Protein backbone atom coordinates (compact mmCIF):
# COMPACT_ATOMS: atom_id res chain seq x y z
CA UNK A 1 0.00 0.00 0.00
CA UNK A 2 2.97 2.28 0.51
CA UNK A 3 3.48 2.99 -3.17
CA UNK A 4 -0.05 4.32 -3.69
CA UNK A 5 -0.10 7.44 -5.86
CA UNK A 6 -1.99 9.36 -3.19
CA UNK A 7 -0.43 9.24 0.26
CA UNK A 8 0.87 11.30 3.15
CA UNK A 9 4.29 10.93 4.68
CA UNK A 10 4.89 11.99 8.30
CA UNK A 11 2.31 14.72 7.94
CA UNK A 12 1.92 17.11 10.87
CA UNK A 13 -0.29 20.18 10.98
CA UNK A 14 0.24 22.93 13.54
CA UNK A 15 -2.10 25.75 14.51
CA UNK A 16 0.40 28.07 16.11
CA UNK A 17 1.94 25.95 18.89
CA UNK A 18 -0.82 23.38 18.87
CA UNK A 19 -0.13 20.20 16.92
CA UNK A 20 -3.52 19.20 15.51
CA UNK A 21 -2.25 16.37 13.33
CA UNK A 22 0.72 14.33 14.50
CA UNK A 23 3.06 12.61 12.11
CA UNK A 24 0.56 10.71 10.02
CA UNK A 25 1.56 8.45 7.16
CA UNK A 26 -1.46 7.16 5.33
CA UNK A 27 -2.12 5.85 1.81
CA UNK A 28 -5.32 6.12 -0.14
CA UNK A 29 -5.60 3.32 -2.69
CA UNK A 30 -7.13 4.24 -6.03
CA UNK A 31 -10.82 3.71 -6.70
CA UNK A 32 -11.66 2.97 -3.12
CA UNK A 33 -13.23 4.72 -0.17
CA UNK A 34 -11.18 5.49 2.91
CA UNK A 35 -13.13 6.54 6.00
CA UNK A 36 -11.52 8.68 8.69
CA UNK A 37 -13.18 8.12 12.06
CA UNK A 38 -12.49 9.32 15.57
CA UNK A 39 -13.93 11.53 18.28
CA UNK A 40 -14.49 15.26 17.65
CA UNK A 41 -11.32 17.32 17.73
CA UNK A 42 -9.09 14.36 16.85
CA UNK A 43 -7.65 16.13 13.82
CA UNK A 44 -9.37 14.17 11.07
CA UNK A 45 -10.99 17.24 9.48
CA UNK A 46 -7.73 19.19 9.70
CA UNK A 47 -5.99 16.25 8.08
CA UNK A 48 -8.60 16.17 5.30
CA UNK A 49 -8.32 19.92 4.73
CA UNK A 50 -4.57 19.72 4.36
CA UNK A 51 -4.97 17.25 1.48
CA UNK A 52 -6.02 20.00 -0.93
CA UNK A 53 -4.19 22.76 0.90
CA UNK A 54 -7.37 24.31 2.28
CA UNK A 55 -5.34 25.13 5.39
CA UNK A 56 -3.47 27.69 3.28
CA UNK A 57 -6.43 29.96 4.02
CA UNK A 58 -5.79 29.77 7.76
CA UNK A 59 -2.81 31.96 8.39
CA UNK A 60 -1.44 30.28 11.53
CA UNK A 61 -1.62 26.78 10.07
CA UNK A 62 1.75 25.20 9.34
CA UNK A 63 2.37 21.91 7.59
CA UNK A 64 5.26 19.50 8.13
CA UNK A 65 5.83 16.33 6.16
CA UNK A 66 4.75 15.49 2.66
CA UNK A 67 1.61 14.77 0.71
CA UNK A 68 2.14 12.95 -2.56
CA UNK A 69 -0.32 12.99 -5.41
CA UNK A 70 0.83 11.35 -8.67
CA UNK A 71 4.46 11.78 -7.73
CA UNK A 72 4.13 15.47 -6.85
CA UNK A 73 4.62 16.87 -3.36
CA UNK A 74 1.63 19.18 -3.14
CA UNK A 75 3.24 21.46 -0.56
CA UNK A 76 6.27 22.03 -2.75
CA UNK A 77 6.59 25.76 -3.46
CA UNK A 78 6.66 24.95 -7.18
CA UNK A 79 3.26 23.24 -7.08
CA UNK A 80 0.47 25.24 -8.67
CA UNK A 81 -2.23 25.13 -6.03
CA UNK A 82 -4.88 26.13 -8.59
CA UNK A 83 -4.10 23.12 -10.79
CA UNK A 84 -3.80 20.90 -7.77
CA UNK A 85 -7.25 21.76 -6.50
CA UNK A 86 -8.77 20.86 -9.87
CA UNK A 87 -7.63 17.33 -9.28
CA UNK A 88 -9.20 17.17 -5.84
CA UNK A 89 -12.87 17.84 -5.25
CA UNK A 90 -14.14 18.70 -1.81
CA UNK A 91 -17.58 18.68 -0.20
CA UNK A 92 -18.35 20.07 3.25
CA UNK A 93 -20.68 19.09 6.05
CA UNK A 94 -23.09 21.92 5.37
CA UNK A 95 -24.37 22.24 1.82
CA UNK A 96 -23.02 25.52 0.49
CA UNK A 97 -24.25 26.16 -3.04
CA UNK A 98 -23.35 29.48 -4.60
CA UNK A 99 -26.18 32.01 -4.65
CA UNK A 100 -26.75 31.33 -8.32
CA UNK A 101 -28.85 29.11 -10.55
CA UNK A 102 -28.42 25.34 -10.50
CA UNK A 103 -26.82 25.51 -13.93
CA UNK A 104 -24.40 28.26 -12.93
CA UNK A 105 -23.35 26.34 -9.82
CA UNK A 106 -22.07 23.48 -11.95
CA UNK A 107 -20.79 25.51 -14.90
CA UNK A 108 -18.83 27.69 -12.51
CA UNK A 109 -15.66 25.63 -12.06
CA UNK A 110 -15.28 24.76 -15.75
CA UNK A 111 -15.76 28.45 -16.60
CA UNK A 112 -12.91 29.31 -14.23
CA UNK A 113 -10.73 27.01 -16.23
CA UNK A 114 -11.52 28.65 -19.52
CA UNK A 115 -14.34 26.57 -21.00
CA UNK A 116 -16.63 29.04 -22.75
CA UNK A 117 -18.37 26.87 -25.35
CA UNK A 118 -22.05 26.68 -24.42
CA UNK A 119 -22.55 23.13 -25.76
CA UNK A 120 -19.51 21.91 -23.86
CA UNK A 121 -20.74 23.54 -20.64
CA UNK A 122 -24.23 22.05 -21.12
CA UNK A 123 -22.61 18.66 -21.50
CA UNK A 124 -20.54 19.07 -18.32
CA UNK A 125 -23.58 20.24 -16.35
CA UNK A 126 -25.61 17.25 -17.46
CA UNK A 127 -22.93 14.62 -16.83
CA UNK A 128 -22.02 16.11 -13.45
CA UNK A 129 -25.65 16.21 -12.35
CA UNK A 130 -26.24 12.68 -13.63
CA UNK A 131 -23.22 11.40 -11.73
CA UNK A 132 -24.59 13.05 -8.60
CA UNK A 133 -27.99 11.41 -9.27
CA UNK A 134 -29.67 14.80 -9.35
CA UNK A 135 -30.31 15.27 -13.07
CA UNK A 136 -33.83 13.82 -13.17
CA UNK A 137 -34.95 15.99 -10.27
CA UNK A 138 -33.64 19.29 -11.61
CA UNK A 139 -33.39 19.00 -15.40
CA UNK A 140 -36.54 21.12 -15.90
CA UNK A 141 -35.44 23.91 -13.59
CA UNK A 142 -31.76 24.43 -14.21
CA UNK A 143 -32.28 28.19 -14.30
CA UNK A 144 -33.81 28.29 -10.82
CA UNK A 145 -31.85 29.34 -7.76
CA UNK A 146 -29.82 26.57 -6.18
CA UNK A 147 -31.13 27.74 -2.82
CA UNK A 148 -34.64 26.59 -3.80
CA UNK A 149 -33.47 22.97 -3.55
CA UNK A 150 -33.91 20.86 -0.42
CA UNK A 151 -30.92 20.29 1.87
CA UNK A 152 -30.28 16.81 0.47
CA UNK A 153 -30.53 18.07 -3.09
CA UNK A 154 -28.21 20.97 -2.28
CA UNK A 155 -25.62 18.54 -0.94
CA UNK A 156 -25.81 16.42 -4.10
CA UNK A 157 -25.54 19.65 -6.10
CA UNK A 158 -22.34 20.41 -4.20
CA UNK A 159 -21.04 16.94 -5.06
CA UNK A 160 -21.97 17.55 -8.72
CA UNK A 161 -20.18 20.89 -8.53
CA UNK A 162 -17.06 19.20 -7.18
CA UNK A 163 -17.26 16.64 -10.02
CA UNK A 164 -17.60 19.35 -12.68
CA UNK A 165 -13.83 19.89 -12.87
CA UNK A 166 -13.29 16.14 -13.28
CA UNK A 167 -11.18 15.47 -10.18
CA UNK A 168 -9.43 12.17 -9.51
CA UNK A 169 -9.89 12.46 -5.77
CA UNK A 170 -12.93 13.47 -3.74
CA UNK A 171 -12.66 14.68 -0.15
CA UNK A 172 -15.87 14.54 1.87
CA UNK A 173 -16.10 16.19 5.28
CA UNK A 174 -19.11 14.60 6.99
CA UNK A 175 -21.18 15.03 3.84
CA UNK A 176 -24.33 13.44 5.23
CA UNK A 177 -24.37 14.54 8.84
CA UNK A 178 -26.77 17.43 8.19
CA UNK A 179 -29.16 15.36 6.08
CA UNK A 180 -32.23 13.27 6.78
CA UNK A 181 -32.01 9.45 6.46
CA UNK A 182 -33.44 9.32 2.92
CA UNK A 183 -30.99 11.92 1.62
CA UNK A 184 -28.20 10.22 3.53
CA UNK A 185 -28.99 6.94 1.79
CA UNK A 186 -28.89 8.71 -1.57
CA UNK A 187 -25.53 10.29 -0.82
CA UNK A 188 -24.12 6.96 0.35
CA UNK A 189 -25.35 5.23 -2.79
CA UNK A 190 -23.73 8.00 -4.78
CA UNK A 191 -20.40 7.52 -3.01
CA UNK A 192 -20.48 3.80 -3.78
CA UNK A 193 -21.11 4.64 -7.46
CA UNK A 194 -18.41 7.28 -7.65
CA UNK A 195 -15.86 4.87 -6.20
CA UNK A 196 -15.67 3.23 -9.63
CA UNK A 197 -13.92 6.33 -10.97
CA UNK A 198 -12.43 8.18 -8.02
CA UNK A 199 -10.45 7.81 -4.84
CA UNK A 200 -12.64 9.01 -2.02
CA UNK A 201 -11.66 10.10 1.48
CA UNK A 202 -14.57 10.63 3.84
CA UNK A 203 -14.67 11.95 7.38
CA UNK A 204 -17.65 10.58 9.25
CA UNK A 205 -19.02 10.31 12.77
CA UNK A 206 -21.47 7.66 11.75
CA UNK A 207 -19.96 4.23 12.39
CA UNK A 208 -22.59 2.39 10.37
CA UNK A 209 -21.92 4.73 7.50
CA UNK A 210 -18.20 4.06 7.62
CA UNK A 211 -18.88 0.31 7.74
CA UNK A 212 -21.36 0.48 4.86
CA UNK A 213 -19.46 2.51 2.32
CA UNK A 214 -15.73 2.39 3.00
CA UNK A 215 -13.08 -0.09 1.95
CA UNK A 216 -10.46 1.16 4.39
CA UNK A 217 -10.86 2.83 7.75
CA UNK A 218 -8.42 4.95 9.70
CA UNK A 219 -9.04 5.64 13.38
CA UNK A 220 -7.72 8.97 14.67
CA UNK A 221 -7.31 9.93 18.29
CA UNK A 222 -5.88 13.23 19.62
CA UNK A 223 -4.19 14.00 16.31
CA UNK A 224 -2.55 10.60 15.95
CA UNK A 225 -3.39 7.74 13.67
CA UNK A 226 -4.21 4.83 15.99
CA UNK A 227 -5.13 2.18 13.52
CA UNK A 228 -5.51 1.83 9.76
CA UNK A 229 -6.71 -1.27 7.97
CA UNK A 230 -9.45 -2.62 5.77
CA UNK A 231 -12.88 -1.65 7.01
CA UNK A 232 -13.78 -5.29 7.50
CA UNK A 233 -10.80 -5.86 9.78
CA UNK A 234 -11.38 -2.68 11.78
CA UNK A 235 -15.03 -3.39 12.36
CA UNK A 236 -14.73 -7.09 13.11
CA UNK A 237 -11.38 -7.57 14.70
CA UNK A 238 -9.43 -4.40 15.43
CA UNK A 239 -5.89 -4.64 16.73
CA UNK A 240 -6.42 -2.14 19.49
CA UNK A 241 -8.84 -2.15 22.35
CA UNK A 242 -9.36 1.61 21.93
CA UNK A 243 -10.57 1.21 18.36
CA UNK A 244 -12.88 -1.54 19.48
CA UNK A 245 -14.28 0.68 22.21
CA UNK A 246 -14.82 3.59 19.85
CA UNK A 247 -16.60 1.73 17.09
CA UNK A 248 -18.82 -0.09 19.54
CA UNK A 249 -19.77 3.23 21.10
CA UNK A 250 -18.29 2.62 24.53
CA UNK A 251 -15.99 5.59 24.20
CA UNK A 252 -15.84 8.86 22.30
Amino acid at each position, binding site marked *: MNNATFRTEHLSVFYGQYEAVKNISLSFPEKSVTALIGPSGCGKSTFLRSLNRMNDEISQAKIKGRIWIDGVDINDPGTDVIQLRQKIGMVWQKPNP*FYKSIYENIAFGPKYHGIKNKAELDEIVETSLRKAALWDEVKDRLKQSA*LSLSGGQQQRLCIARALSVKPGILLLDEPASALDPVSTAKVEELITDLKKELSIVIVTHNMQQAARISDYTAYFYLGSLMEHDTTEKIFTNPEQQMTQDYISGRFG
Partner: protein
Amino acid sequence: MKTIDERPVQVQPARGTRWKKHHAEDVAGRSYTFICAALLIVIILSIVYFVASKGLATFFRDGVSLSDFLFGTTWDPEGNNGEPMYGVLPFIFGSFATSLLAALIASPLSICASLFMTEIVPGWGKKLLQPVIELLAGIPSVVYGFIGLTVVVPFLRNVFPGQGIGIAAGAIVLSVMILPTITSVAADALASLPRGLKESSFALGATRWQTISRVILPTVLPSILTGVVLGMARAFGEALAVQMVIGNAPHIPRSLFESASTLTSVITLDMGNTVMGSAHSNALWSMALALMFMTFVFVMIVRLLERRHRI
Protein backbone atom coordinates in the same frame (compact mmCIF):
# COMPACT_ATOMS: atom_id res chain seq x y z
CA MET B 1 -60.34 0.87 26.86
CA LYS B 2 -60.30 4.51 27.69
CA THR B 3 -59.41 6.99 24.99
CA ILE B 4 -57.50 10.10 25.76
CA ASP B 5 -60.66 12.19 25.81
CA GLU B 6 -62.26 10.17 28.56
CA ARG B 7 -59.38 10.53 30.92
CA PRO B 8 -60.16 12.83 33.80
CA VAL B 9 -58.44 16.13 33.21
CA GLN B 10 -55.94 16.92 35.89
CA VAL B 11 -56.36 20.49 37.00
CA GLN B 12 -53.66 22.14 39.04
CA PRO B 13 -55.12 23.24 42.36
CA ALA B 14 -55.72 26.96 42.16
CA ARG B 15 -53.11 28.89 44.04
CA GLY B 16 -55.33 31.90 44.45
CA THR B 17 -54.42 35.21 42.96
CA ARG B 18 -51.23 35.51 44.92
CA TRP B 19 -48.67 37.33 42.84
CA LYS B 20 -45.20 36.03 42.70
CA LYS B 21 -42.16 38.18 42.18
CA HIS B 22 -41.47 36.87 38.68
CA HIS B 23 -45.02 37.75 37.60
CA ALA B 24 -44.51 41.32 38.71
CA GLU B 25 -41.16 41.49 36.93
CA ASP B 26 -42.72 40.23 33.76
CA VAL B 27 -45.53 42.78 33.83
CA ALA B 28 -43.15 45.62 34.72
CA GLY B 29 -40.75 44.76 31.93
CA ARG B 30 -43.52 44.44 29.41
CA SER B 31 -45.10 47.75 30.40
CA TYR B 32 -41.78 49.55 30.32
CA THR B 33 -40.88 48.40 26.80
CA PHE B 34 -44.42 49.11 25.65
CA ILE B 35 -44.29 52.66 26.99
CA CYS B 36 -40.91 53.29 25.33
CA ALA B 37 -42.13 51.95 21.99
CA ALA B 38 -45.35 53.96 22.20
CA LEU B 39 -43.42 57.13 23.05
CA LEU B 40 -41.16 56.60 20.04
CA ILE B 41 -44.11 56.16 17.73
CA VAL B 42 -45.86 59.23 19.12
CA ILE B 43 -42.74 61.36 18.68
CA ILE B 44 -42.20 60.25 15.10
CA LEU B 45 -45.85 60.74 14.19
CA SER B 46 -45.91 64.22 15.74
CA ILE B 47 -42.79 65.23 13.82
CA VAL B 48 -44.32 64.02 10.58
CA TYR B 49 -47.59 65.80 11.42
CA PHE B 50 -45.84 69.05 12.34
CA VAL B 51 -43.64 69.16 9.26
CA ALA B 52 -46.55 68.17 7.03
CA SER B 53 -48.92 70.79 8.48
CA LYS B 54 -46.34 73.53 7.99
CA GLY B 55 -45.07 72.26 4.68
CA LEU B 56 -48.47 71.70 3.12
CA ALA B 57 -49.58 75.22 4.09
CA THR B 58 -47.43 76.50 1.23
CA PHE B 59 -49.77 74.82 -1.19
CA PHE B 60 -53.11 75.10 0.60
CA ARG B 61 -52.83 78.50 2.31
CA ASP B 62 -50.26 80.42 0.33
CA GLY B 63 -51.61 79.14 -2.98
CA VAL B 64 -48.31 78.02 -4.48
CA SER B 65 -48.94 75.21 -6.96
CA LEU B 66 -47.06 71.96 -6.44
CA SER B 67 -45.62 72.00 -9.95
CA ASP B 68 -44.37 75.59 -9.56
CA PHE B 69 -42.74 74.53 -6.31
CA LEU B 70 -41.12 71.31 -7.55
CA PHE B 71 -40.26 72.36 -11.09
CA GLY B 72 -39.85 76.13 -10.84
CA THR B 73 -36.28 77.29 -11.28
CA THR B 74 -36.55 80.73 -9.67
CA TRP B 75 -36.15 81.06 -5.91
CA ASP B 76 -37.21 84.54 -4.85
CA PRO B 77 -39.29 84.10 -1.70
CA GLU B 78 -39.13 87.77 -0.70
CA GLY B 79 -40.33 88.94 -4.12
CA ASN B 80 -37.33 91.19 -4.78
CA ASN B 81 -38.12 91.08 -8.50
CA GLY B 82 -41.89 91.40 -8.39
CA GLU B 83 -43.98 88.38 -7.40
CA PRO B 84 -42.39 86.00 -4.87
CA MET B 85 -41.27 82.79 -6.57
CA TYR B 86 -40.84 79.48 -4.79
CA GLY B 87 -39.17 77.23 -7.35
CA VAL B 88 -36.94 74.71 -5.57
CA LEU B 89 -35.83 72.65 -8.55
CA PRO B 90 -32.24 74.01 -8.33
CA PHE B 91 -32.00 72.77 -4.72
CA ILE B 92 -33.51 69.37 -5.49
CA PHE B 93 -31.05 69.09 -8.34
CA GLY B 94 -28.18 70.14 -6.07
CA SER B 95 -29.14 67.60 -3.41
CA PHE B 96 -29.38 64.73 -5.87
CA ALA B 97 -26.25 65.73 -7.77
CA THR B 98 -24.07 65.99 -4.66
CA SER B 99 -25.31 62.79 -3.02
CA LEU B 100 -25.21 60.71 -6.21
CA LEU B 101 -21.74 61.95 -7.03
CA ALA B 102 -20.61 61.34 -3.44
CA ALA B 103 -21.92 57.77 -3.60
CA LEU B 104 -20.18 57.30 -6.91
CA ILE B 105 -16.84 58.41 -5.45
CA ALA B 106 -17.22 56.61 -2.11
CA SER B 107 -18.63 53.24 -3.23
CA PRO B 108 -15.58 51.81 -5.03
CA LEU B 109 -13.29 53.04 -2.24
CA SER B 110 -15.51 51.57 0.46
CA ILE B 111 -15.95 48.23 -1.29
CA CYS B 112 -12.21 47.88 -1.75
CA ALA B 113 -11.56 48.89 1.85
CA SER B 114 -14.05 46.33 3.13
CA LEU B 115 -12.58 43.61 0.91
CA PHE B 116 -9.13 44.51 2.19
CA MET B 117 -10.33 44.23 5.77
CA THR B 118 -12.20 40.95 5.43
CA GLU B 119 -10.67 39.04 2.52
CA ILE B 120 -7.20 40.25 1.65
CA VAL B 121 -5.59 40.95 5.03
CA PRO B 122 -8.13 39.92 7.66
CA GLY B 123 -5.52 40.15 10.41
CA TRP B 124 -3.83 43.55 10.67
CA GLY B 125 -5.96 44.99 7.86
CA LYS B 126 -8.98 44.84 10.11
CA LYS B 127 -7.06 45.95 13.19
CA LEU B 128 -5.78 49.00 11.35
CA LEU B 129 -8.77 49.98 9.24
CA GLN B 130 -11.60 49.35 11.68
CA PRO B 131 -10.59 52.11 14.14
CA VAL B 132 -9.75 54.46 11.27
CA ILE B 133 -13.21 54.00 9.81
CA GLU B 134 -14.91 54.38 13.17
CA LEU B 135 -12.93 57.56 13.69
CA LEU B 136 -14.02 58.90 10.31
CA ALA B 137 -17.62 58.28 11.29
CA GLY B 138 -17.14 60.21 14.52
CA ILE B 139 -15.68 63.41 13.10
CA PRO B 140 -18.27 66.22 13.39
CA SER B 141 -19.61 67.50 10.10
CA VAL B 142 -18.48 71.07 10.80
CA VAL B 143 -14.90 69.79 10.83
CA TYR B 144 -15.44 68.12 7.48
CA GLY B 145 -16.87 71.35 6.11
CA PHE B 146 -13.97 73.36 7.49
CA ILE B 147 -11.41 71.02 5.95
CA GLY B 148 -13.36 71.09 2.71
CA LEU B 149 -13.33 74.86 2.69
CA THR B 150 -9.61 75.16 3.42
CA VAL B 151 -8.28 72.19 1.43
CA VAL B 152 -10.72 70.94 -1.18
CA VAL B 153 -12.08 74.28 -2.41
CA PRO B 154 -8.66 75.95 -3.01
CA PHE B 155 -7.44 72.76 -4.68
CA LEU B 156 -10.40 72.71 -7.06
CA ARG B 157 -10.00 76.45 -7.67
CA ASN B 158 -6.39 75.95 -8.72
CA VAL B 159 -6.96 72.92 -10.89
CA PHE B 160 -10.31 73.59 -12.54
CA PRO B 161 -11.87 76.78 -13.90
CA GLY B 162 -14.26 78.49 -11.48
CA GLN B 163 -14.37 79.41 -7.82
CA GLY B 164 -13.75 75.94 -6.44
CA ILE B 165 -16.99 75.99 -4.53
CA GLY B 166 -19.88 73.99 -5.97
CA ILE B 167 -21.25 70.50 -6.51
CA ALA B 168 -17.81 68.92 -6.94
CA ALA B 169 -16.52 70.27 -3.63
CA GLY B 170 -19.73 69.23 -1.85
CA ALA B 171 -19.59 65.74 -3.35
CA ILE B 172 -15.95 65.24 -2.36
CA VAL B 173 -16.58 66.28 1.24
CA LEU B 174 -19.71 64.12 1.40
CA SER B 175 -17.94 61.12 -0.11
CA VAL B 176 -15.46 61.10 2.78
CA MET B 177 -18.33 61.44 5.23
CA ILE B 178 -20.28 58.47 3.86
CA LEU B 179 -17.21 56.28 3.39
CA PRO B 180 -17.55 54.74 6.88
CA THR B 181 -21.25 53.98 6.40
CA ILE B 182 -20.75 52.02 3.20
CA THR B 183 -17.53 50.38 4.39
CA SER B 184 -18.94 49.09 7.64
CA VAL B 185 -22.14 47.76 6.05
CA ALA B 186 -20.11 46.05 3.31
CA ALA B 187 -17.58 44.67 5.79
CA ASP B 188 -20.36 43.23 7.97
CA ALA B 189 -21.94 41.61 4.94
CA LEU B 190 -18.62 40.12 3.85
CA ALA B 191 -17.81 38.85 7.33
CA SER B 192 -21.19 37.15 7.65
CA LEU B 193 -20.80 35.13 4.46
CA PRO B 194 -20.69 31.40 5.15
CA ARG B 195 -17.07 30.32 5.06
CA GLY B 196 -17.88 27.28 2.97
CA LEU B 197 -18.86 29.48 0.06
CA LYS B 198 -15.37 30.85 -0.32
CA GLU B 199 -13.73 27.50 0.31
CA SER B 200 -15.90 25.74 -2.29
CA SER B 201 -14.72 28.22 -4.83
CA PHE B 202 -11.09 27.66 -3.85
CA ALA B 203 -11.62 23.91 -3.91
CA LEU B 204 -12.75 24.16 -7.53
CA GLY B 205 -9.38 25.65 -8.35
CA ALA B 206 -10.40 29.30 -8.42
CA THR B 207 -7.88 32.01 -7.66
CA ARG B 208 -8.53 34.52 -4.94
CA TRP B 209 -9.39 37.17 -7.51
CA GLN B 210 -11.89 34.89 -9.29
CA THR B 211 -13.42 33.96 -5.95
CA ILE B 212 -13.85 37.57 -4.90
CA SER B 213 -15.16 38.85 -8.19
CA ARG B 214 -17.44 35.96 -9.16
CA VAL B 215 -18.58 34.44 -5.87
CA ILE B 216 -18.16 36.88 -3.01
CA LEU B 217 -19.11 40.19 -4.58
CA PRO B 218 -22.20 38.93 -6.46
CA THR B 219 -23.42 37.28 -3.27
CA VAL B 220 -23.09 40.36 -1.07
CA LEU B 221 -24.15 42.84 -3.76
CA PRO B 222 -27.62 43.49 -2.27
CA SER B 223 -26.05 44.25 1.11
CA ILE B 224 -23.45 46.51 -0.45
CA LEU B 225 -26.21 48.35 -2.29
CA THR B 226 -28.00 48.73 1.04
CA GLY B 227 -24.86 50.40 2.37
CA VAL B 228 -24.66 52.66 -0.66
CA VAL B 229 -28.30 53.72 -0.25
CA LEU B 230 -27.78 54.37 3.46
CA GLY B 231 -24.72 56.45 2.57
CA MET B 232 -26.72 58.40 0.00
CA ALA B 233 -29.44 59.02 2.56
CA ARG B 234 -26.84 60.43 4.89
CA ALA B 235 -25.36 62.58 2.12
CA PHE B 236 -28.82 63.77 1.14
CA GLY B 237 -29.59 64.93 4.65
CA GLU B 238 -26.20 66.43 5.49
CA ALA B 239 -26.48 70.22 5.79
CA LEU B 240 -23.59 71.95 7.46
CA ALA B 241 -20.57 70.54 5.68
CA VAL B 242 -22.23 70.94 2.30
CA GLN B 243 -23.39 74.44 2.98
CA MET B 244 -19.83 75.46 3.81
CA VAL B 245 -18.39 74.40 0.45
CA ILE B 246 -21.18 74.56 -2.09
CA GLY B 247 -21.50 78.34 -2.53
CA ASN B 248 -25.26 78.62 -1.95
CA ALA B 249 -26.29 80.32 -5.18
CA PRO B 250 -29.94 79.53 -5.96
CA HIS B 251 -29.39 78.35 -9.53
CA ILE B 252 -28.91 75.13 -11.39
CA PRO B 253 -25.15 75.29 -12.04
CA ARG B 254 -23.79 74.75 -15.50
CA SER B 255 -20.65 73.04 -14.27
CA LEU B 256 -19.54 71.07 -11.21
CA PHE B 257 -17.39 73.99 -10.13
CA GLU B 258 -20.08 76.65 -10.08
CA SER B 259 -21.83 77.81 -6.93
CA ALA B 260 -25.02 75.84 -6.21
CA SER B 261 -27.38 74.93 -3.35
CA THR B 262 -29.03 71.89 -1.82
CA LEU B 263 -32.35 71.56 -0.01
CA THR B 264 -30.56 71.32 3.32
CA SER B 265 -28.18 74.20 2.74
CA VAL B 266 -31.04 76.57 1.86
CA ILE B 267 -33.03 75.54 4.92
CA THR B 268 -30.12 76.16 7.30
CA LEU B 269 -29.22 79.47 5.66
CA ASP B 270 -32.74 80.91 5.44
CA MET B 271 -34.39 79.66 8.58
CA GLY B 272 -33.04 82.45 10.75
CA ASN B 273 -34.28 85.13 8.39
CA THR B 274 -37.91 84.19 8.11
CA VAL B 275 -40.97 84.95 10.20
CA MET B 276 -42.79 81.89 11.48
CA GLY B 277 -45.99 81.40 9.50
CA SER B 278 -44.88 83.53 6.54
CA ALA B 279 -44.96 82.09 3.03
CA HIS B 280 -41.16 82.03 2.98
CA SER B 281 -41.01 80.06 6.20
CA ASN B 282 -43.69 77.66 4.98
CA ALA B 283 -41.75 77.12 1.77
CA LEU B 284 -38.75 76.05 3.86
CA TRP B 285 -41.01 73.59 5.69
CA SER B 286 -42.18 72.27 2.34
CA MET B 287 -38.53 71.62 1.49
CA ALA B 288 -38.13 69.85 4.81
CA LEU B 289 -41.15 67.75 3.91
CA ALA B 290 -39.56 66.90 0.57
CA LEU B 291 -36.36 65.89 2.38
CA MET B 292 -38.30 63.70 4.77
CA PHE B 293 -40.17 62.11 1.89
CA MET B 294 -36.86 61.32 0.20
CA THR B 295 -35.58 59.71 3.39
CA PHE B 296 -38.65 57.48 3.42
CA VAL B 297 -37.94 56.58 -0.18
CA PHE B 298 -34.36 55.64 0.74
CA VAL B 299 -35.62 53.51 3.64
CA MET B 300 -38.08 51.79 1.31
CA ILE B 301 -35.28 51.04 -1.15
CA VAL B 302 -33.16 49.53 1.63
CA ARG B 303 -36.13 47.40 2.73
CA LEU B 304 -36.65 46.20 -0.82
CA LEU B 305 -33.00 45.30 -1.24
CA GLU B 306 -32.99 43.39 2.03
CA ARG B 307 -36.04 41.43 1.02
CA ARG B 308 -34.42 40.52 -2.27
CA HIS B 309 -31.34 39.42 -0.39
CA ARG B 310 -33.30 37.01 1.75
CA ILE B 311 -34.53 34.93 -1.21
